[in-house]
């Protein structure tokens, strides 16, 4: 790759000149050439020479989606989507800071400006010497007195960027950590709750939202009369945060909640309300899911299913009445089943508690103890359950989370499903033969 060196050399000399340093042009040229021979990217080569001769730290230019925790001295160019003031106490002094959301072609991020830069909604700004802090589990851009903020012509960024964010997003598409969430939801249920925070008690609203694709829980940190069961509301500038592994819509003080012109009807949400099972490949790429229905075969009953013993103090599963925290205890019997559900497109682990274990196996804890016998042969119970369940088609509901041990759904209900194979087969034949009929030229007709 041929890189024209001269302009870069000039640039470096000029930049060094601003700090009062003069360096022989030939030396810069030689070193730059050498770095480029080593295939160092030209921007990186320039940085290292400026650092070496002028002790100048060039900011690294980043896109919003590339930002990671702890990055310093970055340069971003973005449009201010939302900006709000907030008064905070810093070292017993009141100070006004500016919080909001900015967006570029790669995504949206929240930001905090610690000084008044006169920013307004819609501005396109280039910020240099900004830094990144984690805030509510997501990288947030911070800039203050030592940063430089330059307003650019608003055509410097594609105008359609913010327009795309105007489009409401469906609940099934929301990911953990999304800032600036814009969505239209129907409130299924909502309730006020008193919680204790470090600043004293506070009233929040929690509930469940639904649209045509999914149900999700929401938390509103500010009271809003619109968040009443049955209402369809349009929410702008909310943010997603996981709560116990489930993506949750968070409505904060900068979120706008307004009555939606077009209500979400019962027919729109029928698929979700009727618990039509979702294919596993469509759900296992979500971060988590709330009260979803799935269906598949139990293809493996995992070890540790059946009769188990728990510590009466901490509920940990224990062996031989010895809890690793509480020592020798009088264990309490419980039942559970862990199995792999697989529908041929995806797989996850499902956990059934004692009630659902009894529902699908017919075993009460007493019956399980009987099977285990006097010597508490727990594997006998597990084998019995494996023999009963492995291979069955099941449908279940529950919350799905992703974690260290893979994807898990804790079932709130489960049932064995049976179909009429003859009818289902007939339907499929009709579909296959119909498709062939409608697409002439596909396949040799004599084969059909």
């Amino acid at each position, binding site marked *: 790759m041929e890189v024209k060196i001269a302009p870069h050399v000039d640039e470096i000399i000029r930049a060094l000149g601003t700090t009062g340093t003069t360096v022989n042009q030939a030396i810069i040229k030689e070193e730059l050439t050498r770095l480029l021979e080593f295939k160092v990217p030209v921007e990186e080569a320039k940085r290292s020479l400026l650092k070496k001769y002028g002790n100048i730290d060039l900011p690294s230019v980043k896109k919003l989606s590339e930002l990671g925790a702890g990055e310093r001295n970055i340069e971003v160019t973005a449009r201010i989507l939302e900006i709000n003031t907030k008064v905070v106490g810093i070292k017993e002094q009141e100070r006004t800071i500016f919080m909001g959301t900015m967006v570029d072609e790669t995504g949206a991020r929240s930001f905090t400006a610690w000084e008044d830069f006169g920013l307004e909604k819609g501005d396109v700004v280039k910020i240099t010497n900004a830094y990144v802090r984690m805030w509510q589990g997501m990288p947030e851009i911070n800039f203050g007195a030592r940063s430089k903020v330059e307003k650019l012509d608003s055509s410097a960024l594609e105008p359609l960027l913010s327009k795309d964010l105007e489009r409401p997003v469906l609940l099934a598409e929301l990911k953990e950590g999304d800032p600036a969430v814009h969505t239209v939801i129907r409130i299924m249920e909502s309730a006020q709750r008193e919680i204790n925070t470090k600043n004293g008690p506070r009233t929040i609203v929690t509930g469940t939202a639904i649209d045509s694709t999914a149900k999700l829980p929401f938390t509103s940190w500010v009271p809003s009369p619109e968040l009443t069961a049955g209402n369809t509301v349009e929410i702008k500038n909310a943010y997603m945060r996981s709560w116990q592994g489930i993506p949750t819509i968070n409505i904060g003080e900068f979120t706008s909640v307004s009555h939606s012109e077009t209500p979400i009807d019962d027919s729109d949400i029928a698929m979700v309300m009727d618990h039509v099972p979702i294919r*596993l*490949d469509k759900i296992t790429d979500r971060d988590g899911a709330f009260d979803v229905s799935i269906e598949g*075969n139990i*293809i*493996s*009953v995992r*070890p*540790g299913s059946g009769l188990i013993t728990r510590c009466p103090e901490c509920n940990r599963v224990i*062996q031989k009445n010895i809890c690793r925290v509480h020592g020798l205890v009088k264990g309490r019997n419980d039942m559970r089943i862990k199995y*792999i559900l*697989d*529908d*041929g*497109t*995806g*797989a*996850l682990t499902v956990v059934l508690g004692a009630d659902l274990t009894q529902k699908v196996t017919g075993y009460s804890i007493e019956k399980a103890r009987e099977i285990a016998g006097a010597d508490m*042969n*727990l*594997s*006998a119970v597990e*084998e*019995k359950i*494996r*023999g*009963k369940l*492995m*291979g*069955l*088609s099941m449908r279940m509901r529950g919350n799905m989370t*992703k*974690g*260290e*041990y*893979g*994807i898990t759904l804790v079932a709130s209900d489960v049932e064995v499903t*049976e*179909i009429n*194979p*003859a*009818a*289902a*087969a*007939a339907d*499929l*034949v009709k*579909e*296959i*033969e119909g*498709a*062939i009929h409608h697409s002439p030229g*596909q*396949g*040799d007709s004599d*084969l*059909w």
Partner: protein
Amino acid sequence: MVEREVAWRVFAHEFIHSDYFFHDGDEFSPNYLVTPTGARVNRLYFVGVLTEIDNLGAGEDMWRARVSDPTGAFSVYAGQYQPQASVFLSGLDVPCFVAITGKARTYEPEDGTIYTSVRPEELNTANDSIRDRWIVDTARLTYERIGLVRSAMDSGLKGDELTDMLVQSGASPKLANGILRAVSHYTDLDKYLNTLSGVIVDTLKNLTSADQSPSPGIGISHAMEEVARSKPVDAMVKETPARYSIEGTQPTQSTEPAQPTQSPQPARSTEPAQPTQSPQSAQSIEPTQPTQSPQPARSTEPAQSTQSPHIVQSTEPENARVAGKEIDDGTTDSEPARPEEDKPEPDEMVYELMGIMDKGNGVPVTELVDESKRSGLTDEQVDGAVKTLMSEGRCYEPRIGVLRRV
């Protein structure tokens, strides 16, 4: 977090016609069998009829089973590392319904052909309704894959563009990758897809008309598998007989519905099908037992007349799951209930127990000895077995007085 491999649903017909095995990255990355419809199979799940079960070889504990669906048969091999599967299989009587989750394997003899088989992970007895459900599910998923492969071939797209198109059409990224591979690997794919579609439609039609039959398809599927298996794999695309042979065998099924009360009948009805099988193919797939095909029949037939569990099961095939459970119990938790000659070596029993009793931290020796004695072994036998297993490197002592399988 390592994502769990999906258990694909493929018919035996497609599985045995697959000859593209690949493996990305380092030695620890998984192997995949890419089928003609682009299923990228590392794991699979199927329900079928167990038609043969043999113990291969004298010293080694290797069980070979054939599990038939209406389109062909899966070869299932369970060796020393699948002790539970071996114990389970060895306790079953043919024919019966089984549900199996397992890993796809291939065997490549010198001549360049590739035979696919399954190494079981988890098995259970099943019944006709579980099997029929599997057929419907597998037919739907296979039919969808066929549609996607066809659209891939018609699109003229390649690489990332093709992947994007497939994902847009509803394929998972894994399936899209498999389809890309299948389209470039398999020749005359279009013809094979037609054949497979035909097989699926016939299978489904068979299901719609088999409503009244309590246990459809045992005889027919056995006959089918032999025909299917006798086809050289590399010549798959020229073959349409597989499909016609289904039609040819259909009358067998309708005129001779398997009757619940006649236990020897299904076994005998499979007999006439065997001569149609080409002997070469049987030999090449089981090099260890060239004369294998007549043997299972001979070895299982007498057993059927003497073993009581079989009667229980074969008299109630429509309720095979319930009956199967009893057999299951006999094989897994009460060793003494099994005929004396079936009892495994003490080494294997102890090894097996060590696996069953281990809940993650090894098994205390005292408990292992107690449990082994309950299964009829003497102290000396257990001691000897533990020594042998240790010296063979199959178990170790993580802590004093605790044993664990390697």
